[in-house]
């Protein structure tokens, strides 16, 4: 039987020929938790009465969502995570290491062909390196820690074929926002996405992470790409584990095939308060902005900062506006310092916070005031997301955010680059 990538990985990990619709119990290659979800997972783990974890090397907890801790409640959760990590011998990435979805691939925990869960919805990020990785809840994670397994409903797959060369000012963020605007916030619910085509192949691995990261914003369970030469060479640099590149069969069954032409795309913005509320940047140009944010598991990588710094170099953040920068890992931060990108941000008047999620989740590092507009490179603009339900969040590429903070209003990056 011909199979999709999802069907192949779930077959190889469950020891049976699995097809869309089947429910399988499958072996996990890696399990990730973060500080917002691991506290509950540890509670569930204790309640389940297990003697220990299945294999500490296959487990990591990243303290990234509220790090360093802004209050006593969070500090207690962090303390609980540290104590659990010490007790079980799992990998711990403490305050300042970075965002979970940067660390897991960067530190070599995941390779092509893997089956991975994470108690964070953006775990679909590692689909960019050909891993079936998906977000689960805390109790699912605890069950994985104990048994090394989890149950999965094998998803149907939608194939997204993106061809064409994106014009100047159009980046991977614009590609994925355009797709989400088209298929809507629940257009791929319960399904896996496979992203293929020349425009995807042309992207760097970093640019591909941005796309797979946002697969969940259309409801997808995974955002899978092929393990081409770029991926294999990237993985070799980061991991000693052996990759198992997994391709779909030629006659695999897809629930839908969607085709896009990147050469026809322009810079886009997701307007408040849903990610699928996407419009060309021209339609919101001029909207005053009080805060810009560049970072997160979507766009907090070196390539993103290089693009933003090239726009901000020699210019200043507008006096009515702030710019917050959060590197996605300590490694990214070091590279920013080495390459001069860090200095360009500081000189432009940006505030650089600790590697981690920054203000994305609304717990610290830049909670907007009532009525304020924020332009952000994050993946979500839900009401209240950044900690204030009376603020407005616009999503765009690092270039669009950089251009906008210079002008103090939403700005088409093509006018500046």
């Amino acid at each position, binding site marked *: 039987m011909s199979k999709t990538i999802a069907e192949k990985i779930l077959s190889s990990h469950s020891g049976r020929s699995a097809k869309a619709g089947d*429910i399988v*119990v499958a072996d996990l290659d890696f399990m990730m938790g973060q*500080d*917002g*979800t691991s*506290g*509950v997972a540890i509670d*569930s783990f204790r*309640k*389940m*009465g*297990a003697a220990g974890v299945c294999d500490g090397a296959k487990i990591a907890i990243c303290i990234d*969502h*509220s790090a360093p801790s802004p*209050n006593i*409640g*969070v500090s*207690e*959760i962090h303390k609980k995570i540290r104590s659990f990590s010490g007790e079980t011998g799992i990998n711990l990435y403490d305050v300042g290491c970075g965002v979970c979805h940067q660390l897991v691939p960067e530190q070599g925990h995941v390779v092509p062909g893997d089956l991975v869960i*994470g*108690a*964070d*919805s953006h*775990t679909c990020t590692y689909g960019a390196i050909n891993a079936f990785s998906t*977000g*689960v*809840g*805390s*109790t*699912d994670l*605890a*069950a994985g820690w*104990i*048994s090394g*397994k*989890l*149950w999965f*409903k094998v998803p149907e797959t939608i194939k997204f074929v993106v061809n064409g060369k994106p014009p100047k000012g159009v980046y991977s963020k614009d590609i994925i926002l355009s797709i989400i605007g088209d298929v809507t*916030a*629940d257009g791929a*619910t*319960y399904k896996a996405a496979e992203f293929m085509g020349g425009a995807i192949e042309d992207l760097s691995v970093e640019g591909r992470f941005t796309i797979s990261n946002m697969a969940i914003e259309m*409801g997808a*369970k995974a955002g899978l790409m092929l393990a081409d030469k770029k991926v294999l060479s990237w993985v070799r640099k980061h991991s000693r584990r052996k990759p198992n590149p997994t391709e779909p069969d030629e006659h695999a069954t897809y629930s839908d095939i969607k085709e896009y032409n990147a050469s026809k795309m322009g810079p886009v913005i997701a307007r408040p308060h*849903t990610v699928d509320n996407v419009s060309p940047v021209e339609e919101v140009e001029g909207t005053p902005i009080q805060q810009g944010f560049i970072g997160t598991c979507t766009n907090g990588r070196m390539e993103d900062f290089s693009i933003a710094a090239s726009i901000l170099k020699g210019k200043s953040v507008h006096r009515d506006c702030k710019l917050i920068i959060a590197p996605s890992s300590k490694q990214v931060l070091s590279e920013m310092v080495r390459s001069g990108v860090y200095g360009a941000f500081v000189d432009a008047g940006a505030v650089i916070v600790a590697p981690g999620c920054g203000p994305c*989740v*609304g*717990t610290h590092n830049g909670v907007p005031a009532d009525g304020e507009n924020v332009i952000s490179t994050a993946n*979500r603009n*839900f*009401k*209240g*997301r950044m*900690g204030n*339900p009376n603020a407005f969040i616009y999503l765009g590429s690092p270039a669009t955010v950089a251009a906008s903070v210079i002008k103090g209003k939403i700005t088409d990056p093509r006018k500046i680059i």
Partner: protein
Amino acid sequence: MMLKGKARRFRQSDDINTDYIISGRYKFKIQDPNELAKHVMEDLDPDFAEKRLEKGDFIVAGRNFGCGSSREQAPMAIKYANVSAVIAKSFARIFYRNSFNLGIPAIEADTDGIEEGDELEVDLNAGLIKNKTKNREIKVAPLPRTMQILLEDGGLVEHFKKHGGFKLD
């Protein structure tokens, strides 16, 4: 499994996300689920938990309920607020898993004819919602066997305590 209560609807019907169900500003600092429950759905209706919700009520919504983050605190806040089930046209998948893992049914049904305050009786085994106020019956999509087992066991923690691992066949 028979459940009875009133329908509780919100000004937004589709795409009720996990930030609406329990805001990130609470999930990180509150570990006590009873405290979390006091803030359930707060950004859509600040009076919901305290004034509108009665024990056993149903949250009723449209498409894509629970989209957004993986936070288990979302169904947890709903459970500890004594909501007996969520009934929606469709659910985001992580929320759906999390609900059953906590032993709360997430019921897929056509909710168009259900209004705020309608008296509902849900028979999960028969796959039927009775709207007593409107004197109407709504068919419910049958639950996959895996979900039935999880509900019967009282959630994934109880399932593991009982079987020491997965036993879902």
